[in-house]
């Protein structure tokens, strides 16, 4: 019950904010009868209406995982965000090995297996992408090669 209500409230606020920012869209002199504002506002209205329905008539709660699992999920998200930033400056192999290893550890907590699968995946995928598929990947940080 509660999760659907919270979700409904979040959607409602986002929808209202969306409508509000849609009213700020600049119209140009090439105006058509509908204009660039109407459709986004319509979408926002549909979402807001559905959110209200959800708040009034929520479904039963799903099984949320324990807070420790939430921690693991959060770590996974942080690792992926870090990986996204690291891919360009640090090359492919190092960040991939670290990120894949941590993800593997989150799914099955065995350090040795996780480390091995991280290194294996990193090396294997690099060979696959670089030589079999011919993608232009940079292996190591730029400074190392000079």
């Amino acid at each position, binding site marked *: 019950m509660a999760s659907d209500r919270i979700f409904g409230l979040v959607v409602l606020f986002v929808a209202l904010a969306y409508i509000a920012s849609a009213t700020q869209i*600049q119209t140009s002199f090439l105006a058509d009868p509908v204009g660039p504002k109407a459709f986004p506002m319509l979408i926002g209205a549909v979402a807001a209406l559905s959110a209200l329905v959800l708040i009034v008539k929520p479904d039963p709660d799903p099984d949320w995982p324990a807070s420790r699992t939430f921690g693991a*999920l959060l770590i996974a998200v942080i690792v992926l965000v870090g990986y996204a930033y690291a891919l360009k400056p640090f090359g492919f192999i190092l960040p991939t090995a670290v990120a894949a290893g941590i993800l593997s550890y*989150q799914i*099955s907590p065995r350090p040795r297996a996780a480390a091995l699968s991280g290194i294996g995946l990193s090396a294997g995928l690099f060979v696959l992408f670089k030589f079999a598929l011919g993608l232009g990947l940079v292996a190591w940080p730029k400074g190392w090669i000079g």
Partner: protein
Amino acid sequence: MDILSNLAMGFGIALSPYTLMLAVIGCFLGTIIGALPGLGPSNGVAILIPLTFTMGLDATSALVLMTSVYYGAMYGGRISSILLNIPGDEPALMTTLDGYPMAKQGRAGDALVLSGVASFVGAFLATVGLMLLAPLLARVAYLFGPAEYFALYLLAFCTLGGMASNNQAKSAIASAIGLGIAMIGVDNNSGMPRLTGGNLHLMDGVDFLVAIVGLFAIAEVFFFIESHGKGSSIGVKLEKVTIPWADIMATKWTMLRASFVGFIAGILPGAGASLGSFLAYMTEKSIAGEKGGFGTGTPRGVAAPEAGNNAAAGGALVPMLTLGVPGSGTTAVLLALLMTLNITPGPTLFTDRPEVVWGLIASLLIANVVLLLMNVPMVKVFVRVLQVPPWVLLPGVTMISFVGIYSLSGSYFDLLLMVGFGALGYVLRKLDVPTVPVILGILLGGNMEDALRRAMVLSDGDATYLFSTPISVGLWVAAILGFVAPMFLRGVLRKPQRVTD
């Protein structure tokens, strides 16, 4: 005999040694993707699109490769359903109902071969149906103006929301999220940026591939972290594999009926393969009656959903190719593929680029035969693939997704967006909000708005123009019915739950 000459042209394109090799590779990859729990046709095709794009394949080769993967994944989904009681993808859920009990009786090999044959029959008949029906529908589609297209897009969202989810409000929210995201970026008509929040990365809008890979593939990783990869290793051993001729002959009418039902379900915009396999199973169950033994491991219960599922996969291509409106999540991903290759589906596709359409149809037929030949003798190889542990598989999938998206634009921003979509997908699926309407919204949002605005330009702002022709009125009625009717049918159409031991 237009069809035959067109088909000959299609085969001329699709039968070169190179494309044939691509078809074989695609079928093999697809079956593996479908068989692996947690990787279905949608996310399998999704993570491969950016890669094929960067490999620089031409349109026909890329289409052949990806449709082979698509059909292959449809085949592969049954393997984990039967052996592990875990549907490899959503439409394969119905196959677990009789497939897993049959495997527990020691007939795993029979069930696998039988379902392979049923898949072949369903997919083959659906491809024939596609050949006959699509050109006709393409001719009707010429009558569609912007008002009709707007109503058609609405119909797709309504039926998808009505049938594919358990709560109309939630699917409406999902569609609104997708449509709302599609609005971001520079407006086509006025050339002004919309809803970008001043962020330069958002000026081009959100790439639908980023959203698809995030919502399907990255979200799946989060689910595996939540479950710690549990429930993926217990399974039934596969002994000797022989061809169960008796079962195949006994189920031939079942396969034909299920293919027909599945094909019809696939054509309905927004319904797709899950509904196809569900309806096919339910029809056969009610024909067999109480004595049919459905749910206890009867061969007919294995053949029906598999034929229905694959027929629906073919049927879903009819509205996708002729109208540009996908019938299911996976066809939405295929539509994304076409759009990436700069092919605009619609009635003009059949006259302007017949080589694409008929090459695609020919490659579907080829993929189908390759899959049947591959699946019967090599089923043991695919079963071995199931033993890849999730703690290697899922990080691998993540890294492939990252490289794919990164190679598209080379920007870290798309990667961040993808992770964001992954988290969104996790929360949405937890809350039982369907994610397919989000994808559909992102794919079709621009077209839907264009249709509305063009209709209003034509009528000079008169809203009644939207309901001015019989076709558009019919589509509006169907859309409203498709959205409202399932509320009352929910008791009747309740999905059966998975068998638990």
